[in-house]
C-alpha cells in the first residue's frame, strides 16, 4: 500500500531515559497537529516492535518518527527491543515514507539502508545524540532543549512544509537554541555551559538523506478571508445599488 498523506506514526518509548525525549515529542505533536491529520502515538509499552510494525502496515503513514536507543546498524524502541537493523527483511515497511529517528549513530549504516529500502527521506545522527538529565523529564528548558531542536523537523512537517523546508527549520532551531544558551536569555543559567555544547554536538552530527520535495501534509483548500474583504463586498454592493438605482431612475423619465 502506498504511503498515505496526512498520516503520521510517532513512537514514544519511556524507559531508559527515553521519557526525556518522548514528553517533548508528545507536546510538539499537540501544538502542531492540524485538522484532518491522522496521528497515532505509540507511548510506553505500546512502543514495542510488534505494535509499531502492525501500525506501519495498517496505517501506511507517510511520516514515521521515533525516539530510541540505537547504534550504527540498529534502532530500538521500548525496553531497547530491536525494531529494525540493517539485515531486517521487513525494511520495506518504510518504503515511500519519511523516517525520522532520534537515536545514536543510525546515520552510519541503518539510515542509508532505509533509503535503499525506498524510504523517501531519513533524518538521524552519525555519532552520539546527547541530552541533559540534570532535572526530571520535561521540567526545565535545559532537559527539553536538545529535543526541541531535534523535533522541529516533524513540527514543520505537521505544519504542512516539505522535507527540505522542515530540515532548514530544524537547523535554524538548533542555532536558536545554541544562541539562547550562549548569548540569549539562558546565558547565565547554571546549565548553560553544558547545553550549548550538547546542542553544538548534535547539530554537527545531524544527517538528512533523501528527497527534499516531499510534502507529507499538504494544506487543505481554504477560502481567503482578510479584514478588508467585508468592506470590499459592501463597497461593491453599494456601487451596484447606485448603478441600478440610476438605471431605474433614468428609465422612469
Amino acid at each position, binding site marked *: 500500500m502506498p504511503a498515505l498523506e496526512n498520516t503520521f506514526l510517532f513512537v514514544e518509548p519511556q524507559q*531508559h*531515559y*527515553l521519557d*526525556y*525525549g518522548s514528553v517533548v515529542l508528545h507536546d510538539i505533536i499537540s501544538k502542531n497537529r492540524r485538522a484532518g491529520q491522522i496521528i497515532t502515538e505509540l507511548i510506553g509499552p505500546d512502543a514495542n516492535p510488534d505494535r509499531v510494525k502492525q501500525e506501519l502496515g495498517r496505517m501506511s503513514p507517510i511520516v514515521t518518527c521515533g*525516539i*530510541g*536507543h*540505537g*547504534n550504527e546498524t540498529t534502532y530500538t524502541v521500548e525496553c*531497547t527491543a530491536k525494531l529494525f537493523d540493517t539485515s531486517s527483511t521487513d525494511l520495506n515497511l518504510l518504503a515511500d515514507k519519511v523516517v525520522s529517528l*532520534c*537515536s*545514536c*549513530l543510525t546515520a552510519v549504516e541503518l539510515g542509508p539502508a532505509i533509503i535503499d529500502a525506498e524510504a523517501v527521506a531519513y533524518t538521524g*545522527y552519525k*555519532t*552520539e*545524540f*546527547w*541530552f*541533559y*538529565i*540534570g532535572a526530571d523529564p520535561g521540567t526545565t528548558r535545559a532537559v527539553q532543549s536538545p529535543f526541541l531542536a531535534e523535533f522541529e523537523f516533524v513540527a514543520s512537517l505537521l505544519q504542512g512544509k516539505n522535507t527540505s523546508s522542515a530540515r532548514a527549520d530544524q537547523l535554524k532551531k538548533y542555532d536558536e537554541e*545554541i544562541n539562547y*544558551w*550562549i*548569548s540569549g536569555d539562558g*546565558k*547565565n*543559567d547554571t546549565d*548553560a*555551559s*553544558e547545553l*550549548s*555544547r*550538547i546542542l*553544538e*554536538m548534535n547539530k*554537527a552530527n545531524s544527517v538528512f538523506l533523501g528527497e527534499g520535495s516531499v510534502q507529507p501534509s499538504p494544506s487543505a483548500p481554504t477560502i481567503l478571508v482578510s479584514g478588508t474583504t467585508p468592506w470590499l463586498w459592501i463597497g461593491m454592493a453599494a456601487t451596484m445599488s447606485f448603478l441600478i438605482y440610476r438605471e431605474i431612475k433614468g428609465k422612469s423619465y
Partner: protein
Amino acid sequence: MTKQVVSNWFSKLGQSEKNLPLLIYQGIVYTPQAVYDEVMRGSPLGDALQSLIEKQSFGTSAEDEQTVAKLRLTQIMRTKPDKPLFATLSGKVFTPSELLGEIENNTDIGRQWVGTEISHMRRIVSVR
C-alpha cells in the same frame, strides 16, 4: 580600533564563559574577563588581544587549541555536582567526572567533546 567592539562582545557572554580560558597570546592563556580588563586599561597587550577578537582568532596552533579546550572542559566539569547529568541515545550515562575521564583517556567520546569545544571557542570569539 575601538574598545566598544570588545565591550559589546564581553557584555553578550554568559557569566560562566567570561572566566574560561579562551585566547593564547605569547604563550599565556587569557579569559574574556582578562581580555576585557586589559583592553579597558588601554595597554599594548590589550591592543594585541583586541586584535585577536576582531579577527575572531584564538591566536593558537592546533595543538594549543586542544590544550585550551581540555582546560575549559576540566574547569566546567569540576564546578558541576558529581551525579549523572549527561546521557546519549546509545544508552550511555555520564557524571561530570566520568566525562572528564573520557577526555583524559582520549576515547571517542572524549575526542567528540574536545572537538566540539574547539568549535564552541570559535563561536564564542565570533559573538557580536
